[in-house]
């Protein structure tokens, strides 16, 4: 990032390549919309470049880039709510069905594969129904694997609030998925 701050465009391209997957995934899970991922991820990196001199040396770049991504995702959710153009829950299923063939375990039977797809689809839809403030914390923790302290920094919240939001989001998710998980547990 130090080289990017000194206008090194090659360093910027490398930086985008390193973080584009995590940024894209965060946006995709929070918005539940594959179509907007590229545009929003691009906007995140444009902001990184434009504000490159505001980056505090010594702080974690991932925290900074996730802060920008989380804020843009929140803005996008609010913009959509204002326009009453709430995103479709079916979009995620399409994303999942597009990605699944590449990720399927070759030793898995067709039946097991279908069951896994069904569960992943349900989890994706359930995440999309968790309220935004809990969803962001959940995605940062349980999908992107950020530490609680880092999430607190990204969201600008006290650590206790972050823990409480993540616990609530997990509880909501479990309650939503309980019928499906019970069905799968049954012989």
């Amino acid at each position, binding site marked *: 990032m130090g080289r990017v701050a000194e206008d090194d465009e090659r360093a910027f391209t490398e930086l985008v390549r390193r973080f584009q997957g995590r940024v894209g995934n965060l946006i995709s899970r929070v918005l539940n919309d594959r179509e907007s991922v*590229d545009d929003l991820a*691009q906007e995140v*990196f444009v902001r990184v470049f434009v504000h490159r001199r505001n980056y505090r040396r010594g702080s974690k770049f991932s925290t900074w880039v996730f802060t920008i991504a989380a804020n843009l995702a929140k803005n996008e959710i609010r913009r959509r709510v204002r326009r009453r153009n709430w995103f479709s829950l079916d979009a995620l299923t399409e994303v*999942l069905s597009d990605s699944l063939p590449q990720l399927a375990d070759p030793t898995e039977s067709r039946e097991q594969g279908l069951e896994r797809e069904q569960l992943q689809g349900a*989890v994706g839809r359930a995440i999309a129904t968790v309220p935004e403030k809990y969803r962001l914390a959940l995605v940062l923790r349980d*999908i992107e694997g950020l530490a609680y302290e880092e999430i607190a920094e990204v969201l600008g919240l006290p650590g206790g609030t972050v*823990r409480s939001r993540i616990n609530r989001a997990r509880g909501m998710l479990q309650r939503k998925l309980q019928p499906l998980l019970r069905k799968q547990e049954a012989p």
Partner: protein
Amino acid sequence: MNRCDQARRLFGSYWDDEVTQAEREWLESHLAACPGCRQQYEQFARTLETVGSLPRTDVAADLAERALAAARRATTAPDRIAVVRARPVWIQVTATAALLLVGLSALLPWLGTPAVQRVLAGRNAKVAEPRLVATASRAPEPVRLDSLGIDHTEDVEFILDPVVLHRGRAQAPSRLPKGVQGEQAVISF
């Protein structure tokens, strides 16, 4: 709070490996003894495992190049005309305050002079009545009003204030004896 509620409250911290040794031992012994909590924890763990293993979304292969091109466009282009760069406001404020201080300190010695005190005292003083200065040996030649080019038979405007105009007829009867000159004239209307 019963033991099951207490155990379920620890699920998140246990999953994140953020419990103390004593909490871990207590929860594990409770899970071993309580089938309801064990089933709940299994569902909780399965949910989070699935969340963590959701397929990742791929971004466009050329995102880096697109982002760089957009970033170049977003970087402010240089102005084509020379623009004086605005200085921070605090510099102007500080400079003005300093100038005012210098000005005031220069005025302070002058404010104590007799001339200023007379001016200040005169602001509240009443207009003195005309007093007798001298008596003319003979009556002065009457001034012909028409020689001044002013028609005093018509309404005359008196400007008493830079803004407000009062209209009235000029009447200036002198209370002084005939032939006496006054140092001040009182005009009433």
